[in-house]
């Protein structure tokens, strides 16, 4: 029987049956159509996650796998390469056998951001959170509450009973409006799906980012009352993406140094230090040390810091985290307390490259309030997550300057292992001998000395709460409410004249000129040897590696730092201390170094969870 005949007969049979029932005067109620399972709320458009893993099996043209793709694939079960419409499903033939099977259906389904299994907050990535929220296993409100609980339980408590154990002191303020923001995110998800990978994700921002719902202290007790009436542009971007601004993280006062000592919230003349959750007798690094400690200890989902001379990357390497120092001009500095605008840049600190890429997506954009951002026009991809390719190292050419490796036992061991991993992943690692000009790049000092007074004055004029009385370095010193060991630093910076500033940071200033030269030189290095990136250790266990941190700020070029391992007792350094590998790329080419860092992370898996800060009982 042909299908056409069958169809016609089926129609006749149905009609006959109906007639018979009517004839005897009794209607048998038809079974109501069965309801399919509620579609998970992951099909918001445009797609929120563009990592190839989540896009490459899309069949319906929306860059994501949804139930629509599964329905299409189910309809083509058994289809083969000989079929006329094979092209419509061939991308989902994951086993390459030329036939669509249930195995292909399962493999495609795996690419949905959805998980109805148990949800554990500790070490949860943005993907984990989104998947659990999409499945209704948890909510942003629940996640936010749990982070608040963890902050309350862990942050100012000495949980480390070892000699020298200290509290983390990573959070200055928690947001009283966080749960309301989380509830709004849950509503957004219910109504529109997963509109952003940050939707409902609680974030901690360094306390030099202005926030309308929490004071912005810069870590200084002198500015405890700085309640700005606007958000920093980057914070506005986070909120637009649906993030929950959970807390303001501690920092080295005014983002100056690497020990993260702050006076905010403390009696005048006293201060606190931020500890690393792995070895609490050690510093979390700085100046974004609070962000580093909080994210490493799972007190928030993602963090943001600022970096002038290492302040994102140092806390990242001290705390086994991923940090991105973006190209100067990729993220607006408007509404961030400055240190030196020639080199300041805000960026993410996260537990994974994926989270860092997600976080970066939310905070790029041209901002008239920060003219440096105009340079990014046309250079920013739709999403940096599209660079999350585990095979990115295959065929890559990675250079390193031999003098940047150093001799620290842990760093050298991990470096050698990392080079082997890079090569095993298909990269060519190219040693480069330093030149005098290159060494000059690394020896250029930070802009903070000569620029801080000038740039701080601009912030005071444009953003500082009018009720704050300490409105200059001189008045800060007069307040007595600052980290007292910084007195000499503040005095010397207050003494910098306009002429000194201009000679340094003016259009033809020495620093301006050197930074431009540095960018040109290092870009040429990359071009001459056809390199995708330079790599070098970000530090040593709880220490810095020579002047390595200066390469990115002294060229303006972006860097991504990724954990490569920890110190062992045999190293004779600081057992348990982490060391990161840093990838430096061309200006506004964050995508390349994110991809390389991601591939390295997948091959290495070096991050560990601090044992002292596990799930709450």
């Amino acid at each position: 029987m042909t299908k056409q005949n069958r169809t016609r007969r089926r129609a006749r049979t149905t009609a006959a049956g109906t007639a018979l029932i009517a004839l005897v005067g009794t209607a048998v109620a038809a079974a109501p159509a069965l309801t399919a399972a509620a579609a998970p709320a992951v099909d918001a458009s445009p797609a929120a996650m563009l990592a190839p893993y989540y896009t490459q099996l899309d069949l319906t043209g929306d860059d994501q796998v949804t139930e629509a793709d599964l329905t299409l694939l189910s309809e083509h079960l058994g289809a083969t390469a000989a079929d006329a419409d094979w092209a419509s499903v061939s991308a989902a033939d994951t086993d390459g056998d030329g036939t669509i099977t249930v195995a292909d259906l399962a493999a495609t389904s795996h690419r949905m951001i959805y998980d109805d299994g148990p949800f554990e907050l500790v070490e949860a990535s943005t993907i984990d959170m989104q998947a659990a929220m999409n499945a209704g296993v948890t909510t942003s409100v629940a996640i936010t509450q749990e982070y608040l609980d963890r902050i309350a339980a862990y942050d100012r408590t000495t949980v480390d009973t070892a000699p020298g154990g200290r509290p983390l002191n990573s959070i200055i303020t928690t947001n009283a409006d966080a749960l309301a923001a989380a509830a709004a995110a849950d509503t957004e998800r219910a109504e529109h799906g997963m509109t952003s990978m940050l939707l409902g994700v609680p974030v901690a921002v360094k306390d030099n980012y202005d926030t309308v719902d929490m004071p912005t202290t810069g870590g200084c007790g002198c500015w405890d009352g700085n309640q700005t009436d606007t958000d920093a542009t980057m914070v506005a971007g986070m909120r637009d993406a649906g993030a929950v601004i959970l807390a303001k993280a501690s920092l080295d006062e005014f983002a100056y140094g690497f020990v993260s000592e702050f006076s905010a919230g403390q009696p005048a003349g006293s201060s606190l230090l931020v500890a690393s959750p792995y070895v609490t007798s050690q510093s979390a690094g700085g100046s974004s040390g609070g962000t580093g400690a909080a994210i490493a200890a799972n007190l928030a989902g993602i963090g943001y810091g600022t970096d002038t001379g290492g302040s994102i990357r140092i806390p990242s390497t001290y705390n086994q985290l991923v940090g991105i120092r973006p190209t100067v001009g990729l993220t607006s500095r408007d509404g961030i307390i400055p240190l030196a605008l020639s080199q300041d840049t805000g960026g993410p600190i996260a537990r994974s490259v994926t989270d860092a890429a997600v976080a970066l997506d939310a905070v790029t954009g041209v901002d008239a309030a920060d003219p440096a951002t105009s340079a990014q026009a046309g250079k920013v991809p739709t999403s940096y997550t599209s660079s999350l390719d585990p095979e990115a190292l295959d065929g890559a050419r990675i250079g390193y300057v031999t003098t940047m490796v150093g001799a620290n036992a842990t760093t050298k061991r991990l470096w050698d292992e990392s080079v082997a991993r890079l090569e095993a992943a298909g990269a060519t690692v190219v040693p480069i001998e330093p030149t005098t000009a290159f060494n000059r790049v690394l020896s250029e000092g930070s802009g903070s000395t000569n620029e801080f007074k000038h740039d701080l004055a601009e912030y005071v004029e444009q953003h500082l709460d009018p009720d704050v009385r300490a409105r200059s370095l001189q008045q800060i010193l007069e307040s007595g409410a600052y980290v007292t060991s910084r007195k000499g630093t503040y005095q010397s910076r207050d003494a910098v004249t306009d002429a000194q500033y201009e000679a340094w940071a003016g259009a033809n200033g020495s620093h301006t000129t050197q930074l431009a030269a540095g960018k040109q030189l290092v870009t040429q290095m990359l071009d001459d040897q056809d390199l995708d990136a330079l790599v070098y250790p970000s530090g040593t266990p709880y220490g810095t590696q020579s002047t390595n941190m200066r390469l990115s700020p002294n060229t303006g070029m972006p860097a991504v730092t990724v954990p490569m391992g920890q110190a062992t007792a045999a190293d004779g350094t600081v057992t348990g201390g982490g060391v990161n590998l840093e990838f430096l790329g061309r200006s506004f080419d964050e995508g390349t170094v994110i991809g390389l860092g991601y591939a390295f992370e997948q091959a290495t898996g070096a991050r560990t969870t601090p044992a002292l800060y596990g799930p709450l009982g």
Partner: protein
Amino acid sequence: MQHLPRPRPRAASIASAALVVAGSIGLAVLTAVPAQAAPTATTVSISTPTSVTVGSPVDVDVTIPDTADVYAYDVTLAVDGDLVAYRDGSVTGPDGGHDAVRTADGGDTLHVLHTRLGSSPALDGDLAASVTLDTLAAGTTEVTVTSVEFVGSDGSTTTLTDPASTSVTIAAVATPTPSPTAAVPGPGAYPSDPATAEPSDPATAIAVGDADDASGASRPAGDALAWTGADVLPWAAVALALLVAGTTLITVRARRARREQTGDAA
């Protein structure tokens, strides 16, 4: 942990006696993977009404007990596509996944598909799936699970082959001829109280007229051609009236029972 299908309203339970046949034929691991990673299952059972009339749906329930690491499955059902057809949207499966039915071979094969979603864990324990088939014509159809392919959380596959079968007899419903004889049935032909009109043996009540019914036990004397004779029509009309009355009663009772279970208002 047991994963039962989403509750569904049952179609008219014309024949309440369901035939369940279970098998445990060869377990084949198709992919070379560590044994502990492969999905496991050893048996499958299938349940349908033994008999219905044309136009009434057939609910097919498939149960796979004691499974482990099942991320997705493809239950292949063989039916007589001339007699039954999958009712769109009727498939159910374990909660929280994607369910679909792919019809192939001109309607003779149904692939009942289920997959978990995203990084959700694979299923363990007893699995249940169901589909509803619309009946197209009289006859008897085997409903056979010819194979079940399981996909584990790591993509490894395991297949149960030819494990279970049952059959459904679909009775034709003849058009009664209006006549004084048919309008006035003999004594005892109608129950005095419709509330007591449940057929004592539904299978007997509906097996008439099925030329392919091998059982024959409930068939009236003569073969299917007898249904074309004018002398049979009045009795057919009576039988149909009884059948519909009984069906309606069972359906009403089943719905009432569901309402009592679920608390639905109506």
